[in-house]
């Protein structure tokens, strides 16, 4: 659907179960997902921008869809900084918005987003990156159950090092918060948090819920021979004759 919309250079909002993608002329200009922290969380939680600064920008520039521009023009953010933060947020939300779902996909023509256009990305790039991210998660630790379960830390092995970023994540993991909640709490992109949680789980520093079965686990190969029924009284005489015959033959 996204590819088709890109081909017809559509403008509007693509609504899916886990998020929304905004397009202008078939290119992705913004994305939102309840699972991914928005620009406001990323900027204010890290202390980059005071909350009032963000609110002011939305109040004053939201109506003419130029919040991003306003943040730069008022000197609160650098040009490159806005672009990088926005791109990070867009790809993060798109990852969830484009996740496989059984729900409906709708497109509303002409709908725009109040943040305004920063740097449009091609729909193919968004789709390619989303696929790459999905594969990366499974390459790290193929247990999708850790993505949604509360994060429960486990004690580290002696001399097992944990990086500063993941230490902060473990410190915030109280056994109740899920990865999405941790991302919001720490002001980090949700995909980055998922990836960190999967890496921690692979290193044994986070519990992997027990009922989990690996996503990519191949079905056990079908047995080559039908299972042999248990025999209670083996025919010893027959087996002896068989053995003797084999020995004579070889």
């Amino acid at each position, binding site marked *: 659907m996204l590819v088709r919309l890109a081909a017809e250079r559509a403008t509007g909002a693509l609504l899916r179960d886990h998020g929304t993608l905004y397009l202008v002329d078939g290119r992705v200009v913004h994305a939102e997902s309840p699972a991914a922290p928005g620009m406001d969380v*990323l*900027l204010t*939680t*890290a*202390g*980059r921008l005071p909350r009032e600064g963000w609110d002011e920008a939305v109040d004053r520039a939201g109506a003419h869809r130029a919040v991003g521009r306003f943040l730069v023009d008022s000197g609160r953010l*650098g*040009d*490159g*900084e806005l*672009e*990088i*933060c926005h*791109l*990070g947020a867009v*790809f993060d939300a798109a990852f969830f918005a484009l996740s496989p779902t059984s729900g409906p996909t709708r497109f509303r023509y002409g709908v725009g987003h109040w943040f305004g256009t920063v*740097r449009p990305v091609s729909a193919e790039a968004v789709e390619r*990156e989303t696929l*790459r*991210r999905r594969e*990366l998660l499974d390459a790290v630790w193929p247990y999708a159950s850790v993505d949604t379960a509360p994060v429960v830390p486990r004690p580290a092995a002696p*001399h097992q*090092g*944990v*990086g*500063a*970023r993941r230490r902060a994540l473990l410190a915030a993991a109280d056994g109740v918060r899920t990865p999405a909640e941790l991302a919001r709490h*720490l*002001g*980090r*992109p949700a*995909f*980055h948090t998922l*990836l*960190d949680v999967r890496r921690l789980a692979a290193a044994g520093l986070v519990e992997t819920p027990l009922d989990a079965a690996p996503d990519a686990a191949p079905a056990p190969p079908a047995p080559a021979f039908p299972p042999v029924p248990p025999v209670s009284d083996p025919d010893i005489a027959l087996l002896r004759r068989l053995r003797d015959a084999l020995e004579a033959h070889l």
Partner: protein
Amino acid sequence: MTNVETALKEAVAIDGAIGAALVDYTSGMALGTIGGGKELDLTVAAAGNTDVVRAKVRAMEMLGLDEEIEDILITLGTQYHLIRLLKSRTSQGLFLYLALSKDRANLAMARHQLKKLEADLEV
């Protein structure tokens, strides 16, 4: 203050540059690439080099070195690959990746220019 595109254009203007990328090293995503061409797929290089950065960060943690990586140099037969970590004020970890042709590049100059570029990008 420059945006990503200008920064990357300046990076490939460095003598001997083959290609450059701005990479988010947690996810391995290239936020922008320039140059490269057939012999060097920068998006693949971006994703692959995040492992280099992560391995080095881990090695330093294990050694108990409380330092930050400024840059990483990889020397090949005909190329230099320079990785410069950006000190971002938001929580995203980024690095600039620059591939240089060994016989045309001046390494000290390239490092210096990359440093200046980082300051301009204001992240």
